[in-house]
């Protein structure tokens, strides 16, 4: 018997875990749909639509980021919720599946299923509301830029086809990182995983940012930049950040996996 990974056993495990996790997942999903619909409804009242401008739909950016963060983090931190309670932990540890299978099943539900569901859900709700607006409003406006060129903009663009969203690709690693951080938190802490993870994350980010600002200040105070323009290009900075994000994600996953294997009950 293969004690590391067996595809049949992994399939059985996914089916079995749905019994435990399915309910939490479906409830979170229901809340997500409700919250998104609510925010669209609040922001797209008749009044707002009467004086519609290209800014009317700007609420979608913070909405997408905040609900996205909450959904991905809540799902990730609830998958291993049972490990905090001994009776449940015992049953889960004793399921005849390997550590890697149990970990991958967590990744499967909290990432491979959760993130696409979120995107799809956002897409569909956006599609519903925006297409109804598109049916009744002027879609484009135009202006002449400083070079004398006429620029046409789509005022009622679907969320995923806005220019801003297309620049998000620099941050594609973020949901993965959130997933990794909250998975680790839920394994690491015995109880109140979510709140403890969130606080640790905030503390960590604050500490990190202040120390970076402090160090950079010390290093660059009273100095003049004499290097090339390379680091003045945002894209290059973002690229380095992505690399760090990916590295951190992998590291957190690895630590989660090890902690999971060593979890006692």
């Amino acid at each position: 018997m293969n004690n590391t990974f067996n595809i049949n056993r992994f399939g059985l495990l996914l089916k079995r875990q749905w019994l435990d996790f399915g309910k939490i997942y479906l409830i979170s999903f229901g809340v997500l749909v409700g919250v998104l619909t609510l925010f669209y409804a609040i922001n797209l009242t008749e009044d707002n639509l009467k004086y519609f401008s290209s800014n009317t739909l700007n609420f979608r950016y913070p909405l997408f980021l905040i609900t996205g963060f909450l959904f991905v983090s809540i799902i990730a931190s609830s998958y291993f919720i049972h490990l905090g309670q001994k009776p449940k932990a015992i049953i889960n540890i004793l399921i005849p599946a390997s550590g890697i299978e149990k970990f991958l099943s967590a990744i499967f539900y909290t990432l491979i299923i959760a993130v696409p569901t979120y995107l799809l859900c956002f897409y569909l709700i956006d599609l519903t509301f925006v297409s109804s607006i598109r049916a009744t409003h002027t879609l484009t406006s135009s202006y002449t830029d400083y070079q004398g060129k006429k620029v046409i903009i789509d005022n009622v663009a679907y969320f995923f086809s806005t220019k801003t969203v297309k620049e998000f690709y620099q941050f594609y690693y973020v949901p993965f990182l959130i997933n990794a951080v909250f998975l680790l938190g839920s394994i690491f802490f015995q109880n109140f995983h979510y709140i403890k993870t969130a606080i640790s994350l905030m503390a960590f980010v604050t500490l990190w940012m202040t120390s970076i600002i402090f160090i950079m200040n010390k290093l660059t105070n009273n100095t003049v930049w004499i290097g090339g323009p390379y680091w003045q290009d945002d894209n290059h900075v973002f690229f380095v950040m992505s690399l760090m994000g990916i590295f951190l994600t992998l590291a957190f996953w690895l630590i989660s996996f090890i902690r999971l294997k060593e979890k006692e009950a």
Partner: protein
Amino acid sequence: MRGMMGMKTLTHIRLPLNFFQNNLEIIKQHHTLVYYLTNTVDMININNLNFGYSKHKPLFKNMSMRLSNGHIYGLLGKNGAGKSTLLKNLAGLVYAQSGTLDVMGFNPAKRQPALLEQICFIPEEFYLPSVKIDAYLKANAPFYKKFDHDYFTDLIKEFDIPVEQKLINMSYGQKKKVIIAFGLATQAKLVIMDEPTNGLDIPSKAQFRKIMASAMTDERCIIISTHQVRDLDNLIDTVIMLDENDVALKASVEEITAKLTFKKVKEIDDSIIYAEASLSGYNAVMPNYHQEESKLDMELLFNAILAEKIKFKPLFS
């Protein structure tokens, strides 16, 4: 003529024996588990185990013990002596600080599926999801290749469990019976039960004893921890008692009653190791000088060992 006969018998026996041995070698190499099942060897081997939930408070100090198949072991000990902890060590739920633990050729701490599917662990406190028995079975049984669905159905019937009810709405005793039925139906070779009769009503305890009597096979090693000794004393064939960070006693009922006599006496004399006052005199434990065949009184033995540990040491070494 005789010689001829002898040779004939010899060759006749030799062939299948060789055949078996050769095959056993192959089986041994490929499957540690099968090897362990075809031989009556130690199923569990604990060697110099050191364990503690914190560094300063050790629970087990250099504990060593061997357990084999074909037995029902009764694990006794005071509250906090580490009964549950020992069971958890065997199932790989907690990790020892040092020492080795061998369960059917595996290290339980690695939590390998091949071992996990041979372990039936009934914890004292457990959790069952809010589904019906059918759904629970569908999700969990496929992990155990030898799961016996008919046997499970029989056990559920024997235990009188309502099949249509959701597991979460069942009483503690009913839930316990469900997990016992499930655990036994997995056909696991190592059956570990932590206080299994807790929460069972009187008829259920009798059903439980019947079920355990039939579940005890030559391939199985059954370990039951209990402080309600009277519920199980006729089921247990070997007593393991934990005290003061170690195994205070591990002996079969046969061995204990060969060495000790348990009987009612009117007066206490020097030969008595330990006695408790009772209605008509004393219940006493004494060395078995006259090869008497007394019934082991586990509760009395338990108290006797706690009180007079030193006197028992030379008897069981």
